[in-house]
């Protein structure tokens, strides 16, 4: 479905101008599409035989959705079933987390203070409707403030009369002085406009001993904060650290988590069907790594401490760079190695479900950069705010279930990737080293790899390389 205009989000095929089996050339008109504004002819940019239609007449689909399949030669007529979704969240695949919210509804939600991110829409395709937003709006009391139209010709709106009770009317300066001088504003008679308490009123309410000397002439009020530190806005608490998005209760049925579950299920079963997995495991000697990390962490503030998985991820990324058979995509029957290492990190979502967004160019990141990006990525993954690129292009993925006490995990490869590394729990293991028995930190590392692309020798080489890299943690 071509994009025919910047504001076109979806379209509906209303007429096919070709039929399966037809041979079409670049530029031929193949269908008529109804957009929100008008019906337009659309042309093909491909040449070949129309194999089959992928949408029915009248189906409204998003821009970019494949609507017909064209194969190179007439010989390849349709045998395989419709093109499966390639990646969770990829265009055309199952609906992305976060239901669709048309602009006017988003605007209404904004005015009513409703966070649409967590609304499940009752409209077509899970689209959020006005009714959904109104139902979710907090308490009846908050009606939308009427737009104060400046009354034409009205020269100066009369300041509102004093509102009795509750709030003491006072100037900002008076409030600040009262706070600084410990004066209770409500006890101060106001002589300002509308009975507001002014600086003068506060000063006269302070017993002489406490009043700051008021030098004559251009006195820079000593107690006022120096101009440089003049807050640009009423002093706000520093931005609170963004806690992970407020959580829904565990959704009973349907809703976003459910569709995510289905998407992962479909992907895993397809992976198992198509990819001939082979599995390897080894024990990583983490003595050097853990010692180095704990030493480094001691001289660091809490906020920049490292966690073991940062070292494991960096070692994996470096190893993937050196063993290209592990890093890339297997598509259209062939393996394309990737020059870049985009390391997918499996993140378990709080209320169930799993996503594996990518740390881009992980092999080039310093440990500190990797640490920062990891924390940001995990936070955004859990808040459902991942960008499409991060979801779409990891070249190899790592799953780390060590925290939950699992010793070894054999992952299922995420198509179209060709390898999945699993790290288990870091334990203190008995260890024989040139005849002496000792206790050492260690963990099991596993590899699931695609036998169409690599074999045990390359896989073993890859795992061994991870272990070697971890022996010199300072170089990670």
């Amino acid at each position, binding site marked *: 479905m071509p994009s025919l205009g910047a504001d076109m989000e979806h379209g509906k095929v209303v007429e096919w101008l070709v039929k399966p089996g037809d041979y079409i050339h670049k530029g031929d008109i193949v269908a008529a599409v109804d957009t929100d504004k008008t019906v337009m002819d659309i042309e093909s940019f491909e040449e070949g035989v129309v194999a089959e239609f992928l949408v029915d007449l009248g189906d409204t689909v998003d821009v970019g959705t494949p609507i017909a399949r064209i194969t190179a030669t007439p010989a390849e007529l349709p045998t395989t079933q419709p093109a499966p979704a390639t990646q969770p969240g990829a265009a055309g695949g199952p609906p992305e987390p976060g239901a669709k919210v048309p602009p006017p509804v988003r605007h209404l939600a904004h005015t009513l203070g409703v966070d649409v991110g967590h609304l499940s829409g009752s409209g077509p395709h899970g689209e959020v409707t006005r009714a959904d937003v109104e139902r979710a709006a907090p308490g009846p009391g908050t009606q939308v403030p009427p737009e104060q139209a400046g009354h034409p*010709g009205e020269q100066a709106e009369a300041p509102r009369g004093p509102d009795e009770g509750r709030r003491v009317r006072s*100037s900002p*300066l008076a409030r600040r002085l009262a706070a600084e001088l410990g004066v209770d504003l409500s006890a101060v008679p106001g*002589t300002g406009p509308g009975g507001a308490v002014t600086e*003068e009123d506060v000063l006269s309410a302070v017993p002489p001993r406490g009043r700051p000397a008021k030098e004559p002439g251009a006195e820079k009020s000593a107690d*006022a904060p120096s101009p440089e530190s*003049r807050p*640009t806005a009423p002093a706000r608490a520093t931005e609170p650290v963004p806690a992970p998005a407020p959580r829904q209760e565990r959704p009973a049925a349907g809703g976003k988590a459910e569709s995510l579950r289905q998407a992962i299920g479909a992907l895993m079963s397809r992976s198992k069907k198509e990819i001939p997995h082979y599995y390897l495991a080894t024990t990583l000697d983490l003595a050097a790594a853990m010692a180095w990390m704990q030493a480094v962490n001691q001289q660091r503030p809490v906020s920049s401490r490292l966690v073991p998985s940062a070292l494991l991820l960096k070692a994996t990324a470096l190893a993937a760079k050196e063993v290209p058979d592990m890093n890339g995509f297997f598509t259209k029957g062939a393996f394309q190695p990737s020059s870049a290492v985009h390391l997918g990190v499996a993140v378990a979502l709080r209320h169930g479900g799993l996503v594996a967004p990518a740390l881009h160019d992980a092999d080039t990141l310093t440990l500190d950069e990797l640490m920062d990006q990891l924390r940001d990525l995990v936070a955004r993954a859990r808040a459902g705010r991942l960008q499409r690129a991060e979801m779409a292009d990891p070249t190899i993925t790592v799953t780390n279930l060590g925290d939950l006490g699992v010793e070894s995990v054999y992952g299922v490869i995420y198509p179209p990737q060709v390898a999945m590394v699993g790290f288990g729990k870091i334990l203190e293991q008995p260890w024989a080293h040139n005849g002496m028995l000792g206790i050492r930190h260690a963990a099991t590392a596993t590899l699931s790899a695609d036998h169409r692309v690599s074999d045990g020798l390359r896989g073993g080489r890859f795992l061994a390389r991870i272990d070697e890299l971890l022996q010199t943690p300072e170089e990670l």
Partner: protein
Amino acid sequence: MKTTYREAMRAALRDAMQRDERVFLMGEDVGSYGGSFAVSLGLLEEFGPERIRDTPLSESGFVGAGIGAALGGMRPVVEIMTVNFSLLALDQIINNAATLLHMSGGQFNVPIVIRMTTGAGRQLGAQHSHSLEGWYAHIPGLRILAPATLADARGMLWTALQDPDPVLIFEHGSLYNVAGELDDDAGAVDIDKAAVVRHGDALTLITYGGTLPLVLEAADLLAAEGIEADVVDLRTLRPLDGQTIMDSVARTHRAVVVDEGWRSGSISAEIAARICEQAFFDLDAPVERVCSLEVPVPYAKHLEQAALPSVERVMAAARRAVGTHG
């Protein structure tokens, strides 16, 4: 030496054209007629018709041509007779002059100066009495100047001509005849800063261009009532010199903005907003604004004066700001 605002501006033009042969003046009746406000009187005889170029009544055409000439390496000074006629050239000013540098990714800047007369108070009726400099101050890519004093009338033009980007100079019609003293060697002045032209601690009076004289008069009358006012002459409306404004308000805790534009969406609205954003905790009273009443400027003198900012309205606002016991 004794001179007037008009002669100071003429001296600025002559000085610029003598120092840089790329500079030329273009506009309606700037040549043989000597300028509709007689600013360019005598320059045609001195510099000739190529550089003192009368134009047909084609504001969009000759303003666009000025922009093209600036692109072509000249330093044009385009005179639009009054801001009222500049409405016919808005597209060239906003969509070309102000925007070409950014659209072209930094390749083409437009070193043009556009001068126009502005303001009311001379019974010229609604179509000839607009004050729209506040509009132009809304446009990123333009610099907006409002010379109110003889020194600025003499000194702003040369600095503006050195600026690689478009500069609009608004000259209030009632200032041309203002006479006063000016140093013989008066020359280029800065065009980035506002100026505190009177000192006082009771409140800050903020204004620019044609309303400066009446604000100074109001300040003197207020002093007689024991209210000493700081008076800030903005000089530039874009960029606004926030530092000077905030320093003064931090000291006086009260502000009155005087602006001949209509109140809604005027430059005074922008200034009041910034004071509330940046000096909120220094305010001891709401920011007051004295603007033109929101009515097409009437012809009859008593009606026109009632519509425009006046000394009395400035004093009333000042008293409100300072509080009744003032």
